[in-house]
C-alpha cells in the first residue's frame, strides 16, 4: 500500500496545473512603482568638459514611477501624502497625486579648470540622488 499512500500525498501537495511564477507574481511590486533610475552621462554631453576634468562619468540618477496609494513606511512618506491621495481620488482631481521625488542625495567631487588657468578640486553637496520618496 506504500505506493498508493505516496502518490496520494503528492497529489494533495502540488495540484497538477500549478504555476510557480504565476503564484509569486501576486507578491511582486507593481512594475512602474516609484523608484531610483540610473542615467550615466559624460560632461562632454553637457558641454562642460572644457572645464571639468574629473570625474569622467557622472550618474546623477533620478526618481520615476507611480506612488502607491498606501505609501506607508516604505517611502518614508508623511501622513500628508495619503491625505493628498484621498483628496485627489475622492474630492478634487485637480489636486495632483503625490509625486515620486528624491529624498536623499550624495555629494560629488569635481576637478575643474578656472578661467584664469588655476585648477580647483571641489566637493559639491546634493549632486547624486540616492533615495526616492512620494510627496
Amino acid at each position, binding site marked *: 500500500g506504500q505506493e498508493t499512500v505516496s502518490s496520494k500525498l503528492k497529489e494533495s501537495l502540488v495540484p497538477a496545473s500549478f504555476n510557480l511564477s504565476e503564484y509569486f507574481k501576486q507578491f511582486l511590486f507593481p512594475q512602474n512603482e516609484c523608484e531610483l533610475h540610473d542615467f550615466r552621462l559624460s560632461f562632454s554631453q*553637457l*558641454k*562642460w568638459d*572644457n*572645464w571639468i*576634468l*574629473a*570625474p*569622467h*562619468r*557622472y*550618474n546623477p540618477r533620478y526618481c520615476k514611477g507611480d506612488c502607491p496609494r498606501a505609501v506607508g513606511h516604505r517611502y518614508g512618506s508623511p501622513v500628508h501624502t495619503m491625505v493628498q491621495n484621498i483628496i485627489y481620488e475622492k474630492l478634487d482631481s485637480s489636486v495632483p497625486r503625490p509625486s515620486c521625488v528624491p529624498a536623499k542625495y*550624495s*555629494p*560629488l*567631487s*569635481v*576637478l*575643474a*579648470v*578656472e*578661467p*584664469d*588657468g*588655476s*585648477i*580647483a*578640486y*571641489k*566637493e*559639491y*553637496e546634493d*549632486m*547624486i540622488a540616492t533615495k526616492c520618496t512620494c510627496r
Partner: protein
Amino acid sequence: SQASKGEARGAASAELETEAEPRSLLQPLDERNRSGLLPCPFKVLSDERGGAHRLQPDSRALRYMKRLYKAYATKEGIPKSSRSHLYNTVRLFTPCAQHKQTPGNQVTGILPSVDLLFNLDSVTTLEHLLKSVLLYTFNDSVSFPSAVKCVCNLVIMEPKASSKTLPRAPYSFTFNSKFEFRKKHKWIEIDVTTLLQPLVASNKRSIHMSVNFTCEKDQLQHPSAQDRWFNMSPLVPPSLLLYLNDTSIQAYHGWYSLHYTRRASQSPDQKTSLAAHPMGEETAECGRASRHRR
C-alpha cells in the same frame, strides 16, 4: 517675418541661456552676483571669449591635482569617506609672472631667488583658508643621492605703494625645512599658511612674493649634485596650493559638522569653537543633547 525673427532670437537666447546655466550653477551665490551684472548669455560669450584665451593649466600642476583627486574621490566622483581632512576645496595656482632676481652664490650655497606673482581671483569670499603650501614639483630626471637641508627665505612684497599710502615693511618669513631629494619624491611642500592667512582673509586678489633658499653645502656630497641642484632650482617655479573650506550652500559640509560635533563634545570652551563653525550651534546642541541622553 518680424514675429518669426523675434521668435528665432528668443529661441537662440533661450538656447544660450541653458548653455550658460551650468557654470553659474556651480558658482557660489556671491560669485554669480559679482559677475551677474551681465545677463547669462553675454556672460557665456565673455567666458567663451575668455575660453578662447583660457589659460591652459601647467602640465605638472595638472598631474599633481589628478593624483590628489584620485586620493580623495572614487572613479564615480564620490568623496572617499576614509579621508579626515576638513577642507572641501583645494585650489592650485601657478605663478602668472616670475622674475629671477639676485643670482645665487655657489660658494655659500645661496640659490638664485625668484620673484613670483600669484593671481587669486578665483578664490571666493565664502572660501576660508585652512592651509597653504608652496609646491615644488620635479620631473623624473632629477634625482639626488643625498638629503639636502635648506632654509627658505620668503618675503611677501607689498604692491607698488601709491604716493598716498606709506610703503609697509615687507613681511619676512624664514623657516627651516629639510628636503629629501630622492628619486621617489616628485614634489616638496613648504607650509606658508601663517603667512597667507591674513592676506586671503582680507580678500587680497594677487600675492607677490620673493623666495630664495640657502642650502648647507656639506650635504651636497658630489660636485655634480651641486651643479645639478644649482642649475635646476630656478627652472622649477613653485605652485601655490590653498586648502579651503567653502561655506557656500552648494559645497559639501557633511563630514565637517560631524567632525565639529565630535570636537565640540570634547572641547570645554564651546564659545571659541562655535565662532569657527557658523552651523556649530545646533551640532553642538545635538552633541550636548546626545551626551545628556547617554
